[in-house]
């Protein structure tokens, strides 16, 4: 099982799995599963075209994958991305169907390109795969922080001068490069399963981005290794095992997060947003602040919170202001982190107590006071002593007062 050609298989599949884990994390975080599906799938047409012209398959794959990435990136600016992705994908696949029908030896090629032919990897293919894999991981490592910021909080990224468009294009091109090397190994259709399943599973086990990437790579490695061993023994296609095992890991992750929600809700690790937003070391300048300027002597956590709430606030007239930046700050979480900030206030610099205004909800002073005698749950501000009339009629007033 570990000799000769099989050794090549193990090495190539391991490289592919690590890269799939790294890229998959970002694909899931950015909500670009469809692009992750479309680029490898469409690149398959390039392989068919290269076969028709008698070129090396890798070149066809690379050209079509990069063309697809650029097409999605360019057209996605003017319309909804999922529609554009679908159209780019079908255009490439249609071209692929044409190439296949024009060439003579289509059946076997189709099957092995779509579903992978992992057991026939020669030593000469190993070097390009390793090189492209190293390039992919290196570029991702180089762009790690801006890419993470642009993925998790696009608005904040724009405000801080990180171009989300350029980041998206970079990411798509890295994915295209990775694709052109992995399609001959695991196949167009299964590269996708290897990217999404492990990354989605990893995200439900941990919330720290670094850990999640490592875990995703680990799960992808486990998936591929189990798959190869099972495939070697049963002689069934590797793609089947990869798809099913990846789905199994995803379900395990879902079960785990359900269990954690049920029993361990209070002990939650800091979420992604605080990790991302803690990056800047200098004073943070908030983007077109409509909550008033944020004083610089506040503890970092409060600055970050108000930034995050600004990023999550919807300014469209008539909207309910309940939209939450995907994968980042939920209202539940911001309360919890406010509680932490309050607990550590002695050890940090001076700060004003967290109030409703810093979670994004603003009520006009001219509004009538809340009817309930009980102060809103969000508050940690002191309330008047019981017995005074204010406790029954105007309990909300100190909470909503401007800083």
């Amino acid at each position: 099982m570990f000799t000769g050609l099989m050794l090549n298989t193990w090495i190539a599949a391991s490289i592919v799995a690590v890269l799939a884990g790294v890229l998959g994390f970002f694909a899931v975080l950015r909500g670009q599963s469809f692009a992750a599906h479309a680029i490898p799938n469409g690149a398959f047409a390039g392989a068919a075209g290269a076969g028709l012209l008698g070129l090396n398959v890798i070149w066809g794959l690379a050209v079509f994958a990069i063309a697809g990435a650029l097409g999605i990136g360019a057209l996605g600016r003017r319309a909804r991305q999922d529609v554009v992705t679908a159209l780019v994908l079908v255009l490439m696949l249609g071209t692929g169907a044409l190439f296949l029908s024009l060439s003579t030896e289509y059946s076997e090629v189709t099957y092995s390109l779509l579903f992978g032919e992992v057991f026939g990897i020669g030593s000469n293919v190993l070097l390009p795969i390793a090189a492209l894999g190293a390039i992919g991981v290196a570029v991702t490592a180089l762009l790690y922080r801006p890419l993470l910021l642009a993925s998790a909080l696009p608005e904040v990224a724009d405000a801080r001068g990180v171009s989300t468009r350029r980041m998206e294009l970079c990411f798509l091109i890295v994915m295209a490069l990775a694709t052109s090397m992995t399609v001959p190994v695991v196949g167009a259709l299964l590269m996708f399963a290897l990217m999404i399943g492990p990354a989605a599973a990893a995200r439900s086990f941990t919330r720290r981005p670094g850990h999640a990437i490592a875990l995703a790579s680990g799960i992808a490695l486990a998936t591929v290794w189990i798959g190869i061993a099972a495939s070697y023994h049963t002689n069934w296609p590797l793609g089947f095992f990869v798809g099913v095992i990846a789905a199994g890991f995803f379900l395990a992750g879902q079960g785990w997060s359900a269990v954690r929600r049920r029993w361990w809700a209070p002990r939650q690790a800091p979420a992604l947003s605080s990790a991302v937003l803690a990056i800047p070391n200098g004073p943070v300048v908030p983007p077109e602040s409509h909550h008033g300027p944020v004083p610089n002597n506040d503890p970092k956590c409060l600055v970050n919170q108000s930034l995050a709430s600004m990023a999550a606030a919807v300014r469209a007239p008539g909207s309910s202001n309940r939209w939450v930046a995907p994968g980042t700050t939920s209202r539940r979480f911001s309360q919890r982190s406010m509680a932490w900030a309050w607990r550590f206030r002695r050890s940090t610099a001076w700060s004003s107590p967290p109030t409703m205004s810093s979670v994004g909800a603003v009520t006009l002073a001219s509004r009538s006071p809340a009817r309930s005698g009980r102060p809103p749950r969000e508050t940690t501000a002191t309330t008047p002593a019981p017995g005074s009339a204010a406790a029954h009629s105007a309990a909300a007033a100190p909470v909503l007062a401007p800083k």
Partner: protein
Amino acid sequence: MGHFFSYLVEPGLLSNSAVRTAFLVGTVVAVTSGVVGVLTVIRGQSFAGHSLADVATTGGAGAFLIGVNQFWGFLIAGVAGAAIMELIGVQRRRGRDVATGVVLGAALGAAALFLYLGTQTSSTTGASFTILFGSMFVISPDTVPALIASGVLALAVVAVLSRVLLLTSLSPELAAARGVPVRAVGIAYLAALAVAVSLSAVVIGAVLSTALLIGPAATALRVAKSPGRALAAAALIGTAVTWLGILLAYDSFYWPPHGHGWPVSFFVVALVVVAYLLSYAWRPRRGRRERAMAAAADQKEPACSPA
């Protein structure tokens, strides 16, 4: 003029029974996909639509393995895939893409297995090509009634639910507030989507059925001025594209390489994309209401998710 016409439309086109079947079924498929596609684009579920097509591939491969007519395999797998996606959580916008992706990955793995086993046992080559890329000219006449019936069924579901579907698509919160069972409507819609997708999977292939689903609908939504007209326009564009595709494919027997037709799927897809790109050139005068609708359709993340 007569000479030109005979150059454009090959003589004997309509006397060929395979071509007649292709025209008939192609029209049904184009109309169904166009109508369901408009809702798919409005709901932002293009990925689900494409995934259902690929999931249907699994059914097609399974049907090929056990020797049943492919259409039933496509249909059953499509509906089952829709149910599983709904179960895992397609209704939540944030987890939807990932849930769809995982179902898709698992289904593709199963398709790989079925195709492998199928080619092992029956030694028929080209099965994977037919299942994935389809061919309109080899539809067996026995399945035509079933194809038409399921197309009409999907259209009926959409017609009965049209107002409710539009409301839940554009503003789920408003629909919930008005007492619409959003989830049940979503399931009914996904079932209709699965049927439409299996239909077009038979006609232009599982992998390419996304073209007929998304392309005409996206074009129509850019051009039309109201949801009703968008539905009609999508059906119209889809039909036109399909007919033209069949025509060109029939003509292409005389193109290089000689004696070998180009696939219908390629022509249909190419025409769909051309139509979509042309819609960028269309600049109609727009009133206030239409602009609001276009904004709703073009919005990146429609409405807002329940927190």
